[in-house]
Protein backbone atom coordinates (compact mmCIF):
# COMPACT_ATOMS: atom_id res chain seq x y z
CA UNK A 1 0.00 0.00 0.00
CA UNK A 2 2.77 2.36 0.97
CA UNK A 3 4.36 1.54 -2.35
CA UNK A 4 1.19 2.39 -4.26
CA UNK A 5 0.91 5.64 -2.37
CA UNK A 6 4.51 6.41 -3.04
CA UNK A 7 4.07 5.58 -6.68
CA UNK A 8 1.11 7.87 -6.85
CA UNK A 9 3.05 10.67 -5.23
CA UNK A 10 5.96 10.17 -7.57
CA UNK A 11 3.68 10.12 -10.62
CA UNK A 12 2.03 13.28 -9.45
CA UNK A 13 5.35 14.96 -8.80
CA UNK A 14 6.64 13.79 -12.17
CA UNK A 15 3.54 15.22 -13.74
CA UNK A 16 4.22 18.53 -12.06
CA UNK A 17 7.84 18.68 -13.07
CA UNK A 18 6.98 17.69 -16.64
CA UNK A 19 4.34 20.35 -16.68
CA UNK A 20 6.77 22.95 -15.49
CA UNK A 21 8.76 23.61 -18.68
CA UNK A 22 5.50 23.97 -20.58
CA UNK A 23 3.99 26.38 -18.11
CA UNK A 24 3.70 29.85 -19.51
CA UNK A 25 4.28 31.54 -16.22
CA UNK A 26 6.35 28.65 -14.88
CA UNK A 27 4.94 29.46 -11.46
CA UNK A 28 4.56 27.00 -8.66
CA UNK A 29 2.11 27.96 -5.98
CA UNK A 30 3.04 26.54 -2.61
CA UNK A 31 0.68 26.51 0.31
CA UNK A 32 0.61 24.44 3.43
CA UNK A 33 -1.00 23.68 6.73
CA UNK A 34 0.11 22.18 9.98
CA UNK A 35 -1.51 20.95 13.14
CA UNK A 36 0.54 20.12 16.20
CA UNK A 37 -1.59 18.68 18.92
CA UNK A 38 -2.16 16.16 21.59
CA UNK A 39 -4.15 15.43 24.66
CA UNK A 40 -5.06 12.91 27.33
CA UNK A 41 -8.04 10.86 28.54
CA UNK A 42 -9.26 10.16 32.08
CA UNK A 43 -9.28 6.36 31.66
CA UNK A 44 -6.79 4.71 29.34
CA UNK A 45 -8.29 1.24 29.78
CA UNK A 46 -11.19 2.41 27.61
CA UNK A 47 -10.90 2.24 23.81
CA UNK A 48 -9.18 5.31 22.38
CA UNK A 49 -11.37 8.21 21.27
CA UNK A 50 -10.45 10.12 18.11
CA UNK A 51 -6.84 8.99 18.53
CA UNK A 52 -6.54 10.06 22.18
CA UNK A 53 -5.76 7.04 24.31
CA UNK A 54 -3.35 7.79 27.17
CA UNK A 55 -3.80 9.21 30.65
CA UNK A 56 -0.52 11.11 30.27
CA UNK A 57 -0.36 14.19 28.10
CA UNK A 58 1.00 13.20 24.69
CA UNK A 59 1.88 15.37 21.70
CA UNK A 60 1.15 12.81 19.03
CA UNK A 61 -1.84 14.08 17.14
CA UNK A 62 -0.03 16.05 14.47
CA UNK A 63 -0.30 16.61 10.78
CA UNK A 64 1.63 18.44 8.09
CA UNK A 65 0.38 19.18 4.60
CA UNK A 66 1.99 20.80 1.59
CA UNK A 67 0.17 21.70 -1.56
CA UNK A 68 1.85 22.53 -4.82
CA UNK A 69 0.00 23.66 -7.88
CA UNK A 70 1.20 24.86 -11.23
CA UNK A 71 -0.48 26.21 -14.33
CA UNK A 72 0.16 24.06 -17.38
CA UNK A 73 -1.70 26.49 -19.62
CA UNK A 74 -4.35 29.17 -19.17
CA UNK A 75 -7.04 26.60 -18.50
CA UNK A 76 -5.06 23.60 -17.23
CA UNK A 77 -3.37 23.25 -13.88
CA UNK A 78 -1.92 20.42 -11.82
CA UNK A 79 -2.21 20.16 -8.05
CA UNK A 80 -0.66 17.79 -5.54
CA UNK A 81 -1.32 17.80 -1.83
CA UNK A 82 1.02 15.69 0.29
CA UNK A 83 0.26 15.04 3.93
CA UNK A 84 2.15 13.33 6.72
CA UNK A 85 0.40 12.29 9.94
CA UNK A 86 1.96 11.39 13.25
CA UNK A 87 -0.23 8.30 13.73
CA UNK A 88 1.05 6.97 10.39
CA UNK A 89 4.65 7.51 11.52
CA UNK A 90 4.68 10.63 9.28
CA UNK A 91 4.50 8.53 6.13
CA UNK A 92 3.92 10.88 3.23
CA UNK A 93 0.71 10.31 1.34
CA UNK A 94 -0.84 12.07 -1.66
CA UNK A 95 -4.27 13.15 -0.48
CA UNK A 96 -4.95 14.99 -3.69
CA UNK A 97 -3.25 14.72 -7.06
CA UNK A 98 -5.24 16.03 -9.95
CA UNK A 99 -5.20 17.94 -13.17
CA UNK A 100 -7.93 20.52 -13.44
CA UNK A 101 -9.40 22.13 -16.48
CA UNK A 102 -11.12 25.47 -16.03
CA UNK A 103 -13.87 24.86 -18.60
CA UNK A 104 -15.53 28.23 -18.04
CA UNK A 105 -15.27 30.96 -15.40
CA UNK A 106 -17.91 29.08 -13.43
CA UNK A 107 -16.97 25.45 -13.97
CA UNK A 108 -14.00 23.15 -13.54
CA UNK A 109 -13.36 19.53 -14.46
CA UNK A 110 -10.80 17.69 -12.34
CA UNK A 111 -9.30 14.27 -12.93
CA UNK A 112 -7.08 12.31 -10.57
CA UNK A 113 -7.21 11.72 -6.85
CA UNK A 114 -9.80 13.96 -5.25
CA UNK A 115 -11.35 14.47 -1.84
CA UNK A 116 -14.76 12.76 -1.72
CA UNK A 117 -17.33 15.44 -0.86
CA UNK A 118 -19.03 13.37 1.84
CA UNK A 119 -19.31 16.11 4.44
CA UNK A 120 -19.69 19.86 4.90
CA UNK A 121 -16.03 20.05 6.02
CA UNK A 122 -14.66 17.30 3.71
CA UNK A 123 -12.84 19.67 1.36
CA UNK A 124 -10.64 21.03 4.14
CA UNK A 125 -10.88 18.17 6.62
CA UNK A 126 -7.13 18.30 7.26
CA UNK A 127 -6.97 22.09 7.47
CA UNK A 128 -7.99 22.61 11.08
CA UNK A 129 -7.41 26.35 10.79
CA UNK A 130 -10.50 26.57 8.59
CA UNK A 131 -12.98 25.43 11.28
CA UNK A 132 -13.63 25.86 15.03
CA UNK A 133 -12.69 22.42 16.43
CA UNK A 134 -9.37 20.60 16.51
CA UNK A 135 -11.09 18.14 14.17
CA UNK A 136 -14.78 17.91 13.27
CA UNK A 137 -17.05 15.81 15.55
CA UNK A 138 -15.80 12.23 15.58
CA UNK A 139 -19.25 10.62 15.63
CA UNK A 140 -20.16 12.17 12.27
CA UNK A 141 -16.69 12.40 10.69
CA UNK A 142 -15.99 8.70 11.14
CA UNK A 143 -15.63 7.37 7.59
CA UNK A 144 -12.15 5.85 7.22
CA UNK A 145 -11.79 6.74 3.53
CA UNK A 146 -11.87 10.33 2.34
CA UNK A 147 -10.53 10.23 -1.19
CA UNK A 148 -11.57 8.87 -4.53
CA UNK A 149 -9.71 8.29 -7.78
CA UNK A 150 -11.88 9.61 -10.55
CA UNK A 151 -13.26 12.65 -12.26
CA UNK A 152 -15.45 15.48 -11.08
CA UNK A 153 -17.28 18.52 -12.35
CA UNK A 154 -17.63 21.57 -10.13
CA UNK A 155 -19.72 24.58 -10.96
CA UNK A 156 -20.70 27.78 -9.17
CA UNK A 157 -23.66 29.98 -9.89
CA UNK A 158 -26.56 31.92 -8.47
CA UNK A 159 -30.16 30.96 -7.87
CA UNK A 160 -32.23 34.03 -7.12
CA UNK A 161 -30.30 35.73 -4.34
CA UNK A 162 -28.46 32.51 -3.35
CA UNK A 163 -24.92 31.58 -4.34
CA UNK A 164 -24.82 27.96 -5.40
CA UNK A 165 -22.16 25.31 -5.89
CA UNK A 166 -22.62 21.88 -7.38
CA UNK A 167 -20.16 19.02 -7.58
CA UNK A 168 -20.68 15.69 -9.34
CA UNK A 169 -18.07 12.94 -9.41
CA UNK A 170 -17.50 9.38 -10.52
CA UNK A 171 -14.72 7.01 -9.51
CA UNK A 172 -13.60 4.43 -6.99
CA UNK A 173 -10.84 3.61 -4.55
CA UNK A 174 -8.91 0.69 -3.11
CA UNK A 175 -7.53 1.10 0.38
CA UNK A 176 -6.51 -0.76 3.50
CA UNK A 177 -8.74 -0.36 6.53
CA UNK A 178 -8.20 -1.36 10.11
CA UNK A 179 -11.04 -3.60 11.16
CA UNK A 180 -10.95 -5.33 14.55
CA UNK A 181 -7.17 -4.85 14.74
CA UNK A 182 -6.67 -6.39 11.28
CA UNK A 183 -5.69 -4.64 8.06
CA UNK A 184 -8.33 -5.56 5.53
CA UNK A 185 -8.77 -4.54 1.93
CA UNK A 186 -11.65 -2.24 1.06
CA UNK A 187 -12.72 -0.95 -2.31
CA UNK A 188 -15.53 0.90 -3.98
CA UNK A 189 -16.46 0.65 -7.64
CA UNK A 190 -18.92 2.71 -9.65
CA UNK A 191 -18.83 5.31 -6.92
CA UNK A 192 -21.03 8.19 -7.93
CA UNK A 193 -22.04 11.22 -5.93
CA UNK A 194 -23.11 14.81 -5.90
CA UNK A 195 -22.95 17.62 -3.38
CA UNK A 196 -24.64 20.99 -3.59
CA UNK A 197 -24.64 24.14 -1.50
CA UNK A 198 -26.90 27.16 -1.30
CA UNK A 199 -25.49 30.20 0.47
CA UNK A 200 -26.85 33.60 1.38
CA UNK A 201 -25.52 36.14 3.85
CA UNK A 202 -24.80 34.15 7.03
CA UNK A 203 -26.33 30.91 5.83
CA UNK A 204 -24.97 27.93 3.92
CA UNK A 205 -27.11 24.87 3.30
CA UNK A 206 -25.61 21.66 1.98
CA UNK A 207 -26.86 18.29 0.79
CA UNK A 208 -24.97 15.34 -0.67
CA UNK A 209 -25.76 11.87 -1.91
CA UNK A 210 -23.33 9.10 -2.82
CA UNK A 211 -23.71 5.53 -3.95
CA UNK A 212 -21.15 2.80 -4.65
CA UNK A 213 -20.57 -0.91 -4.88
CA UNK A 214 -18.64 -1.57 -1.67
CA UNK A 215 -16.45 -4.57 -0.88
CA UNK A 216 -14.61 -5.01 2.39
CA UNK A 217 -12.80 -8.28 2.92
CA UNK A 218 -13.78 -9.08 6.50
CA UNK A 219 -12.79 -12.77 6.31
CA UNK A 220 -9.49 -12.44 8.26
CA UNK A 221 -11.14 -10.60 11.18
CA UNK A 222 -11.20 -12.69 14.37
CA UNK A 223 -14.36 -13.38 16.35
CA UNK A 224 -14.78 -13.06 20.14
CA UNK A 225 -15.21 -16.17 22.29
CA UNK A 226 -18.89 -15.28 22.72
CA UNK A 227 -19.28 -16.32 19.08
CA UNK A 228 -16.47 -18.86 18.59
CA UNK A 229 -17.45 -20.88 21.72
CA UNK A 230 -21.09 -21.55 20.82
CA UNK A 231 -20.09 -22.03 17.15
CA UNK A 232 -17.65 -24.75 18.17
CA UNK A 233 -20.27 -26.46 20.38
CA UNK A 234 -22.74 -26.34 17.52
CA UNK A 235 -20.22 -27.82 15.10
CA UNK A 236 -19.49 -30.69 17.50
CA UNK A 237 -23.21 -31.37 17.95
CA UNK A 238 -23.79 -31.40 14.18
CA UNK A 239 -20.70 -33.53 13.53
CA UNK A 240 -21.86 -36.16 16.06
CA UNK A 241 -24.87 -36.82 13.78
CA UNK A 242 -22.73 -37.17 10.64
CA UNK A 243 -20.46 -39.88 9.19
CA UNK A 244 -16.76 -38.89 9.57
CA UNK A 245 -16.32 -37.95 5.88
CA UNK A 246 -19.18 -35.41 6.07
CA UNK A 247 -17.94 -33.75 9.24
CA UNK A 248 -16.83 -30.09 9.21
CA UNK A 249 -13.65 -28.91 10.85
CA UNK A 250 -14.24 -25.50 12.38
CA UNK A 251 -11.36 -23.09 11.91
CA UNK A 252 -9.55 -22.20 15.12
CA UNK A 253 -9.13 -19.43 16.15
CA UNK A 254 -12.33 -18.60 14.40
CA UNK A 255 -12.45 -15.70 11.94
CA UNK A 256 -15.40 -14.25 10.04
CA UNK A 257 -14.17 -16.22 7.01
CA UNK A 258 -14.19 -19.48 9.02
CA UNK A 259 -17.63 -18.69 10.38
CA UNK A 260 -18.88 -17.99 6.83
CA UNK A 261 -17.57 -21.41 5.71
CA UNK A 262 -19.37 -23.00 8.63
CA UNK A 263 -22.66 -21.27 7.76
CA UNK A 264 -22.34 -22.38 4.15
CA UNK A 265 -21.63 -25.95 5.34
CA UNK A 266 -24.86 -25.81 7.36
CA UNK A 267 -26.75 -24.60 4.27
CA UNK A 268 -27.19 -20.95 5.20
CA UNK A 269 -25.66 -19.61 1.98
CA UNK A 270 -28.06 -16.69 1.86
CA UNK A 271 -27.01 -15.51 5.30
CA UNK A 272 -23.34 -15.96 4.40
CA UNK A 273 -23.84 -13.62 1.44
CA UNK A 274 -25.77 -11.23 3.62
CA UNK A 275 -23.08 -11.13 6.30
CA UNK A 276 -20.08 -10.48 4.04
CA UNK A 277 -19.56 -7.15 2.29
CA UNK A 278 -19.05 -8.07 -1.33
CA UNK A 279 -20.30 -5.77 -4.06
CA UNK A 280 -22.98 -4.51 -1.72
CA UNK A 281 -24.66 -1.26 -2.64
CA UNK A 282 -23.81 1.45 -0.13
CA UNK A 283 -25.60 4.78 0.02
CA UNK A 284 -24.46 7.84 1.93
CA UNK A 285 -26.70 10.81 2.53
CA UNK A 286 -25.80 14.14 4.12
CA UNK A 287 -27.63 17.35 4.98
CA UNK A 288 -26.00 20.25 6.77
CA UNK A 289 -26.30 23.89 7.61
CA UNK A 290 -23.70 26.44 8.61
CA UNK A 291 -24.34 29.89 10.07
CA UNK A 292 -21.76 32.60 10.64
CA UNK A 293 -22.85 36.12 11.50
CA UNK A 294 -19.35 37.14 12.54
CA UNK A 295 -20.31 37.08 16.23
CA UNK A 296 -22.56 34.05 16.36
CA UNK A 297 -21.62 30.77 14.66
CA UNK A 298 -23.59 27.55 14.39
CA UNK A 299 -23.48 24.36 12.37
CA UNK A 300 -25.45 21.13 12.20
CA UNK A 301 -25.04 18.04 10.09
CA UNK A 302 -26.86 14.74 9.75
CA UNK A 303 -25.47 11.74 7.85
CA UNK A 304 -26.70 8.23 7.09
CA UNK A 305 -24.74 5.33 5.63
CA UNK A 306 -26.97 2.52 4.49
CA UNK A 307 -25.90 -0.83 3.11
CA UNK A 308 -28.60 -2.42 1.00
CA UNK A 309 -29.46 -6.05 1.58
CA UNK A 310 -27.97 -6.18 5.12
CA UNK A 311 -24.30 -6.79 5.88
CA UNK A 312 -22.29 -7.30 9.03
CA UNK A 313 -22.00 -3.52 9.18
CA UNK A 314 -24.80 -1.55 10.80
CA UNK A 315 -26.51 1.34 9.13
CA UNK A 316 -24.82 4.43 10.57
CA UNK A 317 -26.98 7.36 11.62
CA UNK A 318 -24.93 10.25 12.95
CA UNK A 319 -25.40 13.93 13.68
CA UNK A 320 -24.08 16.98 15.49
CA UNK A 321 -25.16 20.48 16.42
CA UNK A 322 -22.62 23.20 17.28
CA UNK A 323 -23.17 26.74 18.57
CA UNK A 324 -20.45 29.28 19.22
CA UNK A 325 -19.72 32.89 20.02
CA UNK A 326 -16.83 34.90 18.62
CA UNK A 327 -15.47 37.72 20.73
CA UNK A 328 -12.32 39.47 19.61
CA UNK A 329 -9.73 36.80 18.83
CA UNK A 330 -11.65 34.09 20.70
CA UNK A 331 -14.29 31.64 19.61
CA UNK A 332 -16.02 29.59 22.28
CA UNK A 333 -18.10 26.67 21.02
CA UNK A 334 -20.30 23.90 22.35
CA UNK A 335 -21.11 20.77 20.33
CA UNK A 336 -23.47 17.87 20.91
CA UNK A 337 -22.87 14.88 18.66
CA UNK A 338 -24.64 11.57 18.46
CA UNK A 339 -24.27 8.12 16.96
CA UNK A 340 -27.48 6.12 16.79
CA UNK A 341 -26.76 3.15 14.50
CA UNK A 342 -29.26 0.52 13.38
CA UNK A 343 -28.06 -3.07 13.85
CA UNK A 344 -28.33 -5.05 10.65
CA UNK A 345 -30.63 -8.03 10.25
CA UNK A 346 -28.18 -10.62 8.99
CA UNK A 347 -30.24 -13.44 10.55
CA UNK A 348 -33.12 -12.51 8.26
CA UNK A 349 -34.62 -15.63 6.68
CA UNK A 350 -33.41 -18.07 9.36
CA UNK A 351 -36.53 -19.99 10.40
CA UNK A 352 -36.05 -21.34 13.92
CA UNK A 353 -37.23 -24.94 13.70
CA UNK A 354 -34.62 -26.79 15.75
CA UNK A 355 -31.53 -26.48 17.94
CA UNK A 356 -29.24 -25.79 14.95
CA UNK A 357 -31.29 -22.99 13.36
CA UNK A 358 -31.89 -21.51 16.82
CA UNK A 359 -28.17 -21.30 17.55
CA UNK A 360 -27.35 -19.97 14.06
CA UNK A 361 -29.89 -17.17 14.52
CA UNK A 362 -28.50 -16.40 17.97
CA UNK A 363 -24.93 -16.24 16.64
CA UNK A 364 -25.87 -14.00 13.71
CA UNK A 365 -27.86 -11.70 15.99
CA UNK A 366 -24.92 -11.63 18.41
CA UNK A 367 -22.53 -10.66 15.60
CA UNK A 368 -24.89 -7.94 14.33
CA UNK A 369 -25.40 -6.55 17.84
CA UNK A 370 -21.65 -6.12 18.27
CA UNK A 371 -21.30 -3.47 15.59
CA UNK A 372 -23.74 -0.57 16.09
CA UNK A 373 -22.50 2.42 18.02
CA UNK A 374 -24.79 4.35 20.33
CA UNK A 375 -23.01 7.36 21.71
CA UNK A 376 -23.61 10.89 22.93
CA UNK A 377 -20.68 13.28 23.12
CA UNK A 378 -20.65 16.85 24.39
CA UNK A 379 -17.63 18.96 23.48
CA UNK A 380 -16.73 22.37 24.85
CA UNK A 381 -13.92 24.14 23.04
CA UNK A 382 -12.12 27.40 22.49
CA UNK A 383 -10.20 28.76 19.54
CA UNK A 384 -7.79 31.64 19.95
CA UNK A 385 -6.58 33.33 16.77
CA UNK A 386 -3.06 34.31 17.73
CA UNK A 387 -2.34 35.91 14.36
CA UNK A 388 -3.94 35.69 10.93
CA UNK A 389 -2.92 32.17 9.96
CA UNK A 390 -2.32 30.66 13.40
CA UNK A 391 -4.86 29.47 15.94
CA UNK A 392 -4.54 27.69 19.27
CA UNK A 393 -7.40 25.37 20.19
CA UNK A 394 -8.36 23.56 23.34
CA UNK A 395 -11.20 21.13 23.73
CA UNK A 396 -12.91 19.03 26.40
CA UNK A 397 -15.20 16.13 25.45
CA UNK A 398 -17.52 14.09 27.59
CA UNK A 399 -18.11 10.79 25.78
CA UNK A 400 -21.02 8.57 26.77
CA UNK A 401 -21.05 5.26 24.87
CA UNK A 402 -23.77 2.67 25.44
CA UNK A 403 -22.33 -0.40 27.11
CA UNK A 404 -19.14 1.36 28.27
CA UNK A 405 -18.03 3.58 31.12
CA UNK A 406 -18.08 7.32 30.41
CA UNK A 407 -14.88 8.88 29.10
CA UNK A 408 -13.42 12.36 29.32
CA UNK A 409 -11.03 13.61 26.65
CA UNK A 410 -8.84 16.72 26.90
CA UNK A 411 -7.13 17.94 23.75
CA UNK A 412 -5.20 20.88 22.33
CA UNK A 413 -3.74 21.84 18.98
CA UNK A 414 -1.79 24.65 17.39
CA UNK A 415 -2.95 24.96 13.79
CA UNK A 416 -1.56 27.10 11.00
CA UNK A 417 -1.93 27.74 7.31
CA UNK A 418 0.85 29.22 5.24
Amino acid at each position, binding site marked *: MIQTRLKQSICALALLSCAHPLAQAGDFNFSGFMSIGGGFVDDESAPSYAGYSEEDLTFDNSLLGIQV*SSDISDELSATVQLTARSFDGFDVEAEWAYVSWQATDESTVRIGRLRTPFYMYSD*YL*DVGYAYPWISPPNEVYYLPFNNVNGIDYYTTGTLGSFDTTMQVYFGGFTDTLNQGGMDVEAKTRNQLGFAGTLAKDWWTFRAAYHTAKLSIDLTPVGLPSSISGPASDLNNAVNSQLPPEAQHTLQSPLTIGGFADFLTHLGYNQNTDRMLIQDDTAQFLEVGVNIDT*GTFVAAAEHVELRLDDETLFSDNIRQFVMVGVRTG*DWLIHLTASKADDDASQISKGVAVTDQVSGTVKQLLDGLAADDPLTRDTVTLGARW*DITAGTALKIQYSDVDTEGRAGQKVYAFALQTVF
Partner: protein
Amino acid sequence: MSNFKAMIVAIGLLITPFAALSEIVVVVHPSTGFDSMSADDVSRLFLGKTKKFPNGTAAVPLNQDAGTAARDQFNEQVCKKSASQYKAYWSKLVFTGKGTPPKDAGDSNNVKSLVASNPNMIGYIDGSLVDGSVKVVYTLE
Protein backbone atom coordinates in the same frame (compact mmCIF):
# COMPACT_ATOMS: atom_id res chain seq x y z
CA MET B 1 2.98 86.16 9.31
CA SER B 2 5.74 83.63 8.77
CA ASN B 3 4.84 82.14 12.15
CA PHE B 4 1.28 81.76 10.96
CA LYS B 5 2.43 80.04 7.76
CA ALA B 6 4.63 77.68 9.73
CA MET B 7 1.69 76.88 11.95
CA ILE B 8 -0.52 76.04 8.94
CA VAL B 9 2.19 73.78 7.53
CA ALA B 10 2.63 72.08 10.90
CA ILE B 11 -1.09 71.50 11.28
CA GLY B 12 -1.22 70.26 7.70
CA LEU B 13 1.60 67.81 8.40
CA LEU B 14 -0.17 66.59 11.49
CA ILE B 15 -3.53 66.16 9.83
CA THR B 16 -2.43 64.63 6.51
CA PRO B 17 -1.45 61.17 7.77
CA PHE B 18 -4.76 60.79 9.60
CA ALA B 19 -6.76 62.04 6.63
CA ALA B 20 -4.89 59.62 4.41
CA LEU B 21 -5.61 56.69 6.73
CA SER B 22 -9.25 57.50 7.12
CA GLU B 23 -10.20 57.27 3.46
CA ILE B 24 -9.69 54.13 1.39
CA VAL B 25 -11.07 54.03 -2.12
CA VAL B 26 -11.63 51.17 -4.56
CA VAL B 27 -10.12 51.95 -7.96
CA VAL B 28 -10.16 50.56 -11.50
CA HIS B 29 -8.67 51.59 -14.83
CA PRO B 30 -10.20 54.84 -16.23
CA SER B 31 -11.24 53.05 -19.44
CA THR B 32 -13.72 50.68 -17.74
CA GLY B 33 -17.30 51.17 -18.84
CA PHE B 34 -18.80 51.76 -15.40
CA ASP B 35 -18.40 54.47 -12.77
CA SER B 36 -19.47 52.88 -9.52
CA MET B 37 -19.80 49.55 -7.74
CA SER B 38 -21.70 48.55 -4.59
CA ALA B 39 -19.89 47.22 -1.53
CA ASP B 40 -21.47 43.86 -2.32
CA ASP B 41 -20.09 43.86 -5.90
CA VAL B 42 -16.61 44.62 -4.56
CA SER B 43 -16.86 42.05 -1.77
CA ARG B 44 -17.97 39.28 -4.18
CA LEU B 45 -14.85 39.91 -6.29
CA PHE B 46 -12.49 39.86 -3.32
CA LEU B 47 -14.12 36.70 -1.87
CA GLY B 48 -13.86 34.89 -5.20
CA LYS B 49 -17.63 34.57 -5.58
CA THR B 50 -17.43 36.09 -9.02
CA LYS B 51 -14.62 36.69 -11.50
CA LYS B 52 -16.32 39.39 -13.51
CA PHE B 53 -17.19 43.06 -13.14
CA PRO B 54 -20.92 43.89 -13.09
CA ASN B 55 -20.69 44.69 -16.83
CA GLY B 56 -19.35 41.20 -17.59
CA THR B 57 -15.65 41.88 -18.26
CA ALA B 58 -13.03 39.80 -16.48
CA ALA B 59 -11.87 41.18 -13.12
CA VAL B 60 -8.57 40.61 -11.34
CA PRO B 61 -8.72 41.78 -7.71
CA LEU B 62 -5.50 42.89 -6.00
CA ASN B 63 -4.93 42.89 -2.26
CA GLN B 64 -2.48 45.04 -0.39
CA ASP B 65 0.05 43.06 1.63
CA ALA B 66 -1.09 41.32 4.80
CA GLY B 67 -0.73 43.53 7.87
CA THR B 68 -1.25 46.85 6.09
CA ALA B 69 -3.86 49.13 7.72
CA ALA B 70 -5.66 49.56 4.38
CA ARG B 71 -6.09 45.80 3.98
CA ASP B 72 -7.42 45.34 7.51
CA GLN B 73 -9.88 48.20 7.05
CA PHE B 74 -10.97 46.88 3.64
CA ASN B 75 -11.48 43.33 4.98
CA GLU B 76 -13.49 44.57 7.95
CA GLN B 77 -15.70 47.04 6.09
CA VAL B 78 -16.17 45.49 2.66
CA CYS B 79 -15.62 41.75 3.16
CA LYS B 80 -16.98 41.89 6.75
CA LYS B 81 -14.16 39.68 8.00
CA SER B 82 -11.28 40.11 10.43
CA ALA B 83 -7.79 39.29 9.14
CA SER B 84 -8.08 35.80 10.72
CA GLN B 85 -11.55 35.16 9.34
CA TYR B 86 -10.41 36.30 5.89
CA LYS B 87 -7.47 33.88 6.07
CA ALA B 88 -9.73 31.04 7.25
CA TYR B 89 -12.24 31.82 4.49
CA TRP B 90 -9.59 31.49 1.79
CA SER B 91 -7.96 28.43 3.30
CA LYS B 92 -11.28 26.64 2.75
CA LEU B 93 -10.98 27.31 -0.99
CA VAL B 94 -7.22 27.19 -1.59
CA PHE B 95 -6.73 23.61 -0.40
CA THR B 96 -9.55 22.29 -2.53
CA GLY B 97 -8.55 23.91 -5.79
CA LYS B 98 -11.86 25.78 -5.70
CA GLY B 99 -10.33 29.23 -5.58
CA THR B 100 -7.20 31.36 -5.41
CA PRO B 101 -7.13 34.46 -3.20
CA PRO B 102 -6.34 37.88 -4.71
CA LYS B 103 -2.59 38.38 -5.12
CA ASP B 104 -0.80 40.47 -2.52
CA ALA B 105 0.45 43.44 -4.55
CA GLY B 106 2.28 45.62 -2.05
CA ASP B 107 1.05 49.00 -0.79
CA SER B 108 -1.26 51.70 -2.16
CA ASN B 109 1.37 52.96 -4.61
CA ASN B 110 2.06 49.49 -6.04
CA VAL B 111 -1.65 48.71 -6.38
CA LYS B 112 -2.33 52.07 -8.00
CA SER B 113 0.33 51.63 -10.68
CA LEU B 114 -0.85 48.04 -11.45
CA VAL B 115 -4.48 49.15 -11.77
CA ALA B 116 -3.45 52.14 -13.90
CA SER B 117 -1.79 49.80 -16.39
CA ASN B 118 -4.45 47.05 -16.66
CA PRO B 119 -8.19 47.55 -17.43
CA ASN B 120 -9.05 44.21 -15.74
CA MET B 121 -7.55 45.01 -12.36
CA ILE B 122 -9.28 46.34 -9.27
CA GLY B 123 -7.69 47.35 -5.98
CA TYR B 124 -8.07 49.60 -2.97
CA ILE B 125 -5.74 52.49 -2.24
CA ASP B 126 -5.29 55.50 -0.04
CA GLY B 127 -7.71 58.19 -1.32
CA SER B 128 -5.00 60.88 -1.27
CA LEU B 129 -3.15 59.08 -4.11
CA VAL B 130 -6.03 59.25 -6.59
CA ASP B 131 -5.23 61.02 -9.87
CA GLY B 132 -6.22 60.68 -13.54
CA SER B 133 -4.52 57.29 -13.91
CA VAL B 134 -7.24 55.46 -11.93
CA LYS B 135 -10.99 55.75 -11.44
CA VAL B 136 -12.72 55.58 -8.04
CA VAL B 137 -15.73 53.23 -8.11
CA TYR B 138 -16.37 52.88 -4.38
CA THR B 139 -15.35 54.83 -1.27
CA LEU B 140 -15.13 53.15 2.12
CA GLU B 141 -17.00 54.91 4.90
